[in-house]
């Protein structure tokens, strides 16, 4: 398969280009408008009244309007489905809760920073938390009643001498193999859940439809993994007062002084460039951050962002900013400078 960006030839089943990392379009399996009539009755959504064929899951027959039976789980489908479709799968290397380095499942301490790995698996109250071992268990369907969400309480972290709860999600989607950021709750490509089921979103009347703040309301504890940093999910790491940038990859926060303009970029003494916020310690160089990448204007309760004609562009909520054009910035907005992802917090 040819990469549309760099032209490199990749294997036919490649999800990303070997050369430049561009996501490759997968051959799309054409979805039938209606399932063929030789399918089992319930699955094909065949209307028992008029014989009309409907897509499984359709509530009413498109021909005669009669109510339809919903599809039932198929035992054969469960047995036959490839393992690659498992959303939470095979043992993956344990990530250190302190520095994020990979470790073997049976390691007691992180080989890189020495943090205790086993300690992170229990809280003060002895409640199990989200560990890789739990994730590898058979993904049980979430119960309508509220089950304890896989969270790491900040109190427990502090008692262990850990600065903050660090992500322990896989860097690759276990379902489709796509690269995922540590803070992602779901794979961007196939949608598979990357952390344990957030049971608090499930109620019997309106099941699991919207899940901006999964576990907090029911458990009284903030989730270890925000469902979506760009949504309204709470961030558990201690944050400075006032506007600041959050680096989701490391959990670090960078205060923005104001009022006035705050220059964000990469420090370069040779060209005498000293931005107010230096992204070098946050992967700025490898991530393609320009010396003068973007600036944030801090006013009284109002904020704006402006790309400074950077080489690798500034993205706001996945929309590329036009160089030199200020755009309003709001709490929770996702900023990407080159490949470095940031989240803006107003206070």
């Amino acid at each position, binding site marked *: 398969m040819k990469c549309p960006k760099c032209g490199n030839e990749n294997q036919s089943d490649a999800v990303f280009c070997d050369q430049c990392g561009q996501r490759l379009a*997968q051959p799309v*399996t054409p*979805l039938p408008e209606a*399932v063929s009539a030789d*399918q089992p009755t319930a*699955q*094909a959504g065949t209307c028992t009244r008029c014989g009309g064929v409907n*897509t*499984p*899951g*359709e*509530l*009413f027959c498109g021909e005669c*309007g*009669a109510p339809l039976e*919903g*599809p*039932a*789980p*198929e035992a*054969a*489908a*469960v047995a*036959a*489905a490839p393992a690659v*479709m*498992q*959303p*939470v799968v095979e043992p993956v290397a344990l990530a250190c809760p302190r520095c994020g380095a990979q470790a073997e499942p049976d390691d007691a301490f992180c080989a890189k920073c020495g943090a205790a790995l086993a300690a992170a698996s229990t809280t003060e109250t002895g409640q199990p938390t989200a560990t890789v071992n739990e994730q590898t268990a058979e*993904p049980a*369907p979430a119960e309508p009643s509220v089950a304890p969400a896989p969270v790491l309480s900040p109190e427990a972290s502090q008692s262990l001498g850990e600065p903050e709860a660090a992500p322990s999600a896989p860097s690759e989607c276990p*379902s*489709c193999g796509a690269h995922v950021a540590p803070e992602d*709750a*779901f794979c*961007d490509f*196939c*949608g*598979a*859940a990357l952390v344990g089921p957030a049971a608090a979103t*499930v109620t*019997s*009347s*309106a*099941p*699991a*439809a*919207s*899940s*901006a703040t999964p576990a907090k309301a029911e458990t009284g504890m903030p989730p270890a993994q925000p*469902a*979506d940093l*760009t*949504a*309204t999910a709470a961030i558990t790491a201690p944050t400075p007062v006032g506007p600041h940038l959050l680096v989701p990859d490391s959990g670090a926060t960078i205060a923005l002084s104001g009022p006035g303009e705050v220059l964000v970029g990469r420090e370069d003494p040779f060209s005498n460039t000293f931005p107010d916020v230096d992204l070098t310690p946050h992967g700025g160089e490898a991530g393609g951050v320009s010396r003068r990448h973007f600036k944030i204007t801090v006013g009284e309760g109002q904020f704006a962002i402006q790309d400074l004609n950077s080489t690798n562009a500034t993205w706001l*909520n996945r929309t590329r900013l036009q160089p030199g054009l200020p755009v*309003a910035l*709001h709490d*929770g907005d996702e900023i990407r400078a080159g490949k470095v992802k940031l989240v803006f917090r*107003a206070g």
Partner: protein
Amino acid sequence: MPEHVSLTTRLNKGYVPVTRTPQLVYALLTAKPGETIARSRMALNFGFVLDRSGSMRGEKIARLIDAVRLALGKVSTDDLVSVTTFNDRADVVAAGARMSEHRSLADQIARIRAGGGTQMSRGLSLGLREVYRRFDKNRVNQVILLTDGQTYGDEEQCLRLANEAGDHHIAIQAFGLGSDWNESLLDEMARRSSGNSDLIESPDEIVPLFSQTVERSQRAIVRNARVTLRLVSGVVPRQVWQVTPVIANLGYAPIGEHDVQVELGELDAEQGKSLLVELVLPPRQAGRFRIAQAQLGYDLPLEHTSDVSGRSDIVVDYVTDPALVRTYDPILMNIVEKVTAFKLQTRALEEAQQGNIIGATQKLRAAATRLLELGEDDLARAANQEADNLEQAGQMSSGGTKKLRYQTRKLTQEL
């Protein structure tokens, strides 16, 4: 900081079965202005364009005069208003001006008399000119058109004017009174100008409908609302329906590899808008999956700003437990049933127009069954009556067609 407009999502079921075939789920997306802006009101630039042909004589013209006077009682002294009438010719009864500047407007309206033929384009042309003359992008610029009869020979001119109105951001709210008017023409004029069309069955209904139109326009505080759906690989949108304030097939536009955008247009301060999105899901193994993220973008003309909502995750659990997959959200079930009734009657009208009498009759009977189940006895009777008309005379009645076409759109107003 609270959002100016919120976007909420819910599914008809949170658990879907693990199957070998694609399956359908329904997502309800509701965009609603928050409390901070819901009490705001837009200023108006309204032009009434009123049919005073001979067929309007008697109660119709009397109720129309009452309706305009009452509607004008609801506008503020700063709102811009004009009144134009038409029969074979057109007259500007009151030129576009602030309410406070109008002298003896009530008397001018009371002197409107019915008589003559119907040349709608003449009235529309003059009425649009009055609104355009005082156009203000910070106001709701609208023409309220009412007619009770067919306009002869100038349909194309009416459509051209509707195009021009749309190009200049002037919406035409087109009302047809009784049963002898061209619903295809009025629907198309409304569509081209981003307005609405509606049926007024009896003269008594003109008064409340005009007042509601004025109030609704004052509440149109959000413009250019659009929902972006970011779908994960393998999830395909099938159809997108607006379900409130009225049912309509919205469609969607692809804007990326997996992204689609749905245009909502204006949002009512109190009611907002709801969408029903039909999504075809690919087969998956058991587990929790995000199938889409939804985000709302919009303009706030009163605040001279644009904004976007936070992203809402739409999540399902693929399960193997047959008991779990039989749990449905009753509100979604009810909405889907109403949309189904609307779809059936729409297809029935289309098939009747194409001469497929048998197909149209079957669809009408099916729609009647759904409407009966929904407790809409009056509409169910109308659908059955039109099915009888088709079987016996080979065609539907003009009044029955209009009733079905316009009333089934409003089924979701009684949620």
